[in-house]
């Protein structure tokens, strides 16, 4: 009897944590998303307003802007990260002391605090004394004195760059894991037949990596949607609202304007987008597996 219940007892502590720290706050914010609640006016939640917060979002220009900014950020950072990671993994897959050394170095960016990454890049892209800004200016005279973080498009570029720098190593390790698990025979046979490296990569390796690449792209999309720290420390959403991603906009609505109802509704829109992508991803994975076993 005691032993039969043991599996449940073991689960209880973790479940209390998950319930108290995730499920309960989620329910709370879901309810709040249907309320009007301006913290500057009232300490307690005000009345229910139905879908008003959600409807308001569909026509509010700053929200629509943040959606667009997020879209641009996600697309560029996901594409760049996946391609670079794949290329790096193909390079690092060979064995050798320098390969091992580079692999160890690659651990560092991912262990670094994202807030600190934002700060460091802000420093390096400062047009007056930033080392990258000046280095680029020295090599390409046309880039001298370019105000990297004061120009909307360039600031977005730098934001994407920090994110690519942060995540490419991690994704490279995922690719290396994927590469290690595909059989080498076909590749070797093709090599003996005299196939070129490019043909081997595009004709043999990449098709077998489809599953891993898909997983990477979706995971990276989810991480990019959540990205927040570097926006605060690198650009502060600026110049103007050109790098104000959805996560950062929600933060502003909640903790600068203190409009809790609207912020909660926006937070749930972000959650819905992420859920949609994750469900779509799980279904893709399942159909991949079916194809593999068929």
């Amino acid at each position, binding site marked *: 009897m005691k032993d039969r219940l043991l599996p449940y007892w073991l*689960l209880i502590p*973790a479940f209390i944590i998950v319930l108290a720290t995730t499920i309960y*706050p989620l329910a709370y914010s879901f309810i709040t998303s249907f309320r009007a609640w301006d913290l500057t006016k009232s300490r307690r939640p005000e009345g229910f307003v139905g879908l008003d917060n959600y409807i308001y979002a569909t026509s509010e220009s700053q929200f629509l802007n943040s959606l667009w900014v997020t879209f641009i950020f996600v697309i560029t950072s996901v594409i760049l990260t996946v391609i670079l990671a794949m290329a790096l993994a193909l390079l690092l897959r060979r064995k050798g002391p*320098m390969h091992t050394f580079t692999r160890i170095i690659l651990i560092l960016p991912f262990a670094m*605090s994202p807030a600190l990454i934002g700060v460091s890049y802000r420093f390096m892209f400062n047009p007056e*004394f930033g080392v990258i800004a000046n280095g680029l200016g020295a090599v390409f005279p046309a880039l001298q004195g370019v105000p990297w973080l004061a120009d909307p498009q360039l600031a977005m570029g730098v934001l994407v760059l920090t994110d690519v720098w942060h995540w490419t190593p991690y994704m490279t390790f995922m690719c290396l*894991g994927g590469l290690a698990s595909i059989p080498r025979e076909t590749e070797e046979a093709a090599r003996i037949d005299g196939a070129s490296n490019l043909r081997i990569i595009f004709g043999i390796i990449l098709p077998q990596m489809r599953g891993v690449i898909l997983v990477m792209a979706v995971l990276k999309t989810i991480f990019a949607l*959540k990205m927040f720290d570097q926006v605060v420390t690198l650009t502060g959403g600026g110049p103007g609202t050109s790098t104000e991603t959805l996560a950062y906009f929600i933060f502003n609505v909640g903790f600068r304007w203190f409009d809790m109802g609207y912020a909660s509704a926006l937070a749930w829109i972000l959650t819905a987008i992420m*859920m949609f992508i994750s469900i779509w991803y799980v279904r893709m994975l399942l159909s991949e597996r079916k194809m593999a076993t068929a």
Partner: protein
Amino acid sequence: MKRTLAYVGERALLVLISIVVLFPIAWMFLTAFKQPRDAYSLSLVFEPTLQNFVTVFSAPWNLGSMVMNSVIVATVTVAIAVPCAALAAYSFSRFRVKGRKFLFFLILSTQFIPAVVIVLPFFLMFRQLNMLDTRLALIIVNLAIVTPFVIWMIKGFIDAIPTDSEEAAMIDGASRLRVIKDIVLPMAAPGIMTSSIFCFILTWNEFLFALILSRRDAVTLPVGLVSFRTERGDLWELMSAAGVMITVPIFIMALFIQKHFTRGMTAGAVK
């Protein structure tokens, strides 16, 4: 000839990659040891100084109290999350609990929830309870992010342990709890250690929660960085010194679990 060219090219590329990865970190480390006038020039030659570290640890910056906050928040979060997660992971790994699939899915799906959704209600609750700007508040919120992640990771490690010796011990009459304590935990120890370090890194680097839930007393290191933005502009040499304080302990830990790095972070993700 063509082969040596490819050989040299590949090595050169590896060097280039290492430079691109290391440079921003190295530049921050150098800046931390520069005097203000050198920090705002691009000189590689400078007279190193420890003054920045002295400055950040004295008033008004008081980095020491932020270090304390970071250490306490990360350590206590690990101390609560890892034991609870290890027990749950064992249960998920070894038993066919009713509704197990649903429960496991529920736990995993919380990983896809953006932190900003969770922090809104917590802000309101802690405000009501007068708990804003306390370490306890940060620990509670960090548990939300870390616990599912650690369950997932440790389950991966326990799954990899063969069940033979557990079964043998139980035939000899050992209870399940005995088996867990004397056989599974020692065998899973390296995995649990690795998970603890990941958990520590995650909490140590956490920014959003600390930014919103702390003002003065509970400020952690990453949020402390923002305080070096003053009316006089950003104080880069001090920011860099604080950055070194954030980075060094984490790098040591990351290198320590280097072999498990990918396995830990991709646990389950590729499966």
